[in-house]
C-alpha cells in the first residue's frame, strides 16, 4: 500500500504545474561574472533579471493564443574571447535559444558575432561600445547601447561649449577607455589644446602619477573614461591632491550609488554623459528606478537600464515575428522593431546600431543632479 502512495505522490510532483503560462522561452545571456569586469557584469545581470521578473510577474507575454514565461540561461565569459565564443556556440546549438543578449567586452562580442550569424541566432549586446562591432555587416548583430562614436559626439559637442582647454584624460587601457580617448581627440576641432593623456590598466588604482602630470599641464578639465569603482577613487585622489579642474565622467558616474562612494562636495560641478539619468522626470525612467531600488536596495545603473531594455526588445521582436524559435524571423523583426525603452526609443539602423539619446547631467552642490543636454529633456537639480 505504501508503495502505491509513494508512486502517486511522485507522479503528481512531475506533472507540469498548471499555472496560466503554457510554455517557457529560454533567452541566452553572456556576461562576466568573474574576472576584472565582474562589477559591471553585476549591473548588467540586475537589469536582465529585473525585466524578466517584471514580464513573468504580469503573466508572461502573448504570441497568438499561447502565453510564454521567460527564463535566462546565463554563461560567464570572463572577458575571454575563446570562452565567449564557446558560450555562444553552446547557447546556439545545445540550449538552442532563439536570441542571445549581453556581453561586456568588445573583443568577446566580436568573437561571438560570427557564431550568431552562422547559426542564425540574433545577438543583442547591451554594453560594449567598440564601433568596429557594427561595421562587420553581420545581419545577426544588434547593439542597444550607444557606441563610442555616438557617446563621444554628444560629449565633444558639449565640451566645445564650455571652456575646457587644455583637456586632459585619465582612461582605462581597454576598449571603453581607448575608444573614448581616441574618439574625443578626433571629434574635437583641429587645434583644440589637449593636456595630459594618461592610461591605466584595468585593475590598477594608483592615479597619483596622472594627477601630478595633469597639474603640471595646468589643464582646466579632466575626462575620466572608466567605470564606477576606479572613477570614485580617481575623483577622491584628484580632489585630495588639491586639483580643482572641471571633471567630465562616463555613464557610470551619474548615480546616487556613485555619490555614496564620495560625497557632494567632491562631485559638485562634475559633468558626465549618461544613457540614463535615474531620477529624470520622465515617467518610464521613474518607475524603472523605483522598481530597481526596491529590488536591489540601491540606485540603478546605466548598464542595468540598457540591459533591461534589451529584454523588452527581444520580447517585442519575438511577438512581432510570431515565433520563439525561428532565429531568422526574429532577426527580421528586430531590424524593423521600435521599442520605447527606459533609455529612449530603440530602433536599429541597417548596421544594427540603435541610437538612444545621450544625456549630459551635472552634479549640483546639494548632491543631486540636473540634466543639461539634450535641450528637450533639460531639467534642473534633483531631476538628473
Amino acid at each position: 500500500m505504501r508503495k502505491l502512495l509513494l508512486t502517486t505522490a511522485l507522479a503528481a510532483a512531475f506533472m507540469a504545474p498548471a499555472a496560466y503560462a503554457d510554455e517557457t522561452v529560454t533567452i541566452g545571456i553572456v556576461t562576466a561574472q568573474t574576472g576584472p569586469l565582474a562589477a559591471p557584469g553585476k549591473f548588467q545581470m540586475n537589469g536582465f533579471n529585473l525585466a524578466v521578473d517584471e514580464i513573468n510577474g504580469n503573466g508572461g507575454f502573448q504570441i497568438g493564443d499561447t502565453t510564454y514565461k521567460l527564463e535566462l540561461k546565463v554563461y560567464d565569459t570572463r572577458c575571454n574571447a575563446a570562452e565567449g565564443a564557446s558560450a555562444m556556440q553552446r547557447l546556439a546549438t545545445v540550449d538552442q535559444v532563439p536570441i542571445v543578449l549581453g556581453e561586456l567586452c568588445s573583443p568577446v562580442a566580436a568573437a561571438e558575432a560570427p557564431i550568431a550569424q552562422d547559426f542564425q541566432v540574433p545577438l543583442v549586446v547591451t554594453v560594449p561600445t567598440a564601433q568596429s562591432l557594427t561595421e562587420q555587416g553581420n545581419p545577426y548583430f544588434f547593439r542597444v547601447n550607444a557606441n563610442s562614436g555616438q557617446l563621444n559626439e554628444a560629449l565633444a559637442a558639449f565640451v566645445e561649449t564650455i571652456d575646457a582647454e587644455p583637456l586632459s584624460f585619465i582612461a582605462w587601457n581597454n576598449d571603453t577607455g581607448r575608444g573614448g580617448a581616441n574618439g574625443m581627440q578626433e571629434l574635437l576641432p583641429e587645434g583644440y589644446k589637449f593636456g595630459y593623456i594618461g592610461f591605466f590598466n584595468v585593475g590598477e588604482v594608483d592615479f597619483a602619477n596622472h594627477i601630478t602630470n595633469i597639474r603640471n599641464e595646468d589643464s582646466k578639465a579632466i575626462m575620466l573614461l572608466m567605470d564606477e569603482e576606479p572613477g570614485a577613487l580617481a575623483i577622491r585622489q584628484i580632489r585630495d591632491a588639491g586639483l580643482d579642474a572641471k571633471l567630465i565622467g562616463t555613464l557610470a558616474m551619474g548615480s546616487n550609488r556613485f555619490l555614496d562612494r564620495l560625497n557632494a562636495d567632491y562631485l559638485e560641478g562634475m559633468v558626465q554623459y549618461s544613457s540614463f539619468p535615474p531620477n529624470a522626470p520622465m515617467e518610464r525612467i521613474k518607475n524603472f528606478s523605483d522598481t530597481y531600488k526596491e529590488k536591489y536596495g540601491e540606485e540603478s545603473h546605466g548598464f542595468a537600464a540598457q540591459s533591461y531594455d534589451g529584454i523588452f526588445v527581444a520580447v517585442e521582436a519575438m511577438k512581432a515575428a510570431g515565433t520563439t524559435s525561428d532565429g531568422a524571423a526574429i532577426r527580421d523583426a528586430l531590424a524593423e522593431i521600435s521599442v520605447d525603452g527606459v533609455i529612449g526609443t530603440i530602433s536599429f539602423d541597417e548596421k544594427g546600431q540603435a541610437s538612444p539619446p545621450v544625456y549630459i547631467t551635472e552634479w549640483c552642490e546639494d548632491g543631486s543632479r540636473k540634466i543639461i543636454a539634450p535641450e528637450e529633456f533639460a531639467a534642473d537639480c534633483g531631476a538628473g
Partner: protein
Amino acid sequence: MKLSFSTAAAIVILAFGALAPFIFGGQPYILYVLTLALCYTIPAIGVNILYGYTGLVSLGHMGFAGVGAYTTALLMKDVGLPFVPSLFGGMFAAGFLGFLVGIPCLRLRSHYFIIVTLAVGMILYTLFNNLDGLTGGAEGLPGIPRPGNIEIGSFVLDFRSLTGFYVLTFIIAALTFGLQYILVRSDFGRSLSSLRQDESLAAARGVNVFGHKLAAFVLSTAIAGVGGAMKVLFLRAAAPLSFDMHESINLMMMLILGGAGYLVGPVIGAITFIALPEFLRIAAEMRLIFFGFVLLILARFAPRGICGAAEAAYRKLTDKEANVVRYT
C-alpha cells in the same frame, strides 16, 4: 608487435581525431570544443618541445602565439593574402621574434630565463593592447576571414562551416604532431633531452648547448605562432586578452597536466583543460580552483601528468619489460 606507450596513444588519438567529424557531426558544440582544444594543442606542442624535452620553462609563450595570430590575421584581412602564405607569414614572424629574444636570453641561468620570458610576454601583450591602428588595440580585431573553399572534383571543403574548419585545424595539428614526432624521435630529440638531464655532460659529449637551445626555442615560438593564428581564424576575431600572462600560464599548466616530455602530453592536456570545463559548465567559477588543486597534486605526486599515470597503467596492461626509452 609491442607498441611503446606513446605510439599506441598517438594512434588512438589520431584515429579519434579523424573520426570526430563523423561521430559528432550532429553535435556542433562538441565539434566546436574539440576544434578549440586542437587550437590550444598546437602551441602546447611548441611548449612541450621547449619544456618537456629541453627543460626550458617559458611563461610568456602565448605572447609569441599572439604575434603569429595578429600577423596572419592582418595578412589575410588587410593584405588579402590567401590562407597558406599568411599562416607561413605568422609562423615566420613568431619564429623570427623567438630568434631575436633567444640569442641574448638563452645564455641566462634557469631562473633568469623564466623571468625574461614572463617580461617578454607582458611587453608583447601591452603592444597588442596599445597599437590601436595596427592590431585594433583593446577593441580587438573583428572580421578575420576564414580561408577560401577548396573544391576537389565535386567534393567542396567549406572552411566557413564548423566541420570544414575542424578538418583544417585537425590537419595542421596532425602536421605539427608529426613534426614533433620526427624531431623528438631523432638524435636531435635525444640531444635536447640530454640538455634537460645534464647540460655540462651534453656539452662534454659534443652537443652545441646554445645552438640546440636556440633551435628548440625558435621551433617552439614558430609553432606557437601557428597555434595563435589558428585560434584567431577560428574565433574570427583577435583579442589582446587571449595572449596575456594568464593564458601563457594556462598553456604551461595544460602541458604539465597532460604530461610534459610525452608526445601525446600536449593534446591530452589541451583536451582535459579546454574540453572538460566546457562540459562541466555548471562549475564555471569552481573549475579554476579545481585546476589549482589538480596542479598542486600533480606537482607533488605525479609530475609526469596524465601520460605518466597512463604509461604506468599501459605497461602493467601489456607487461612489457621495462623499456623505458621514455621519449618514444
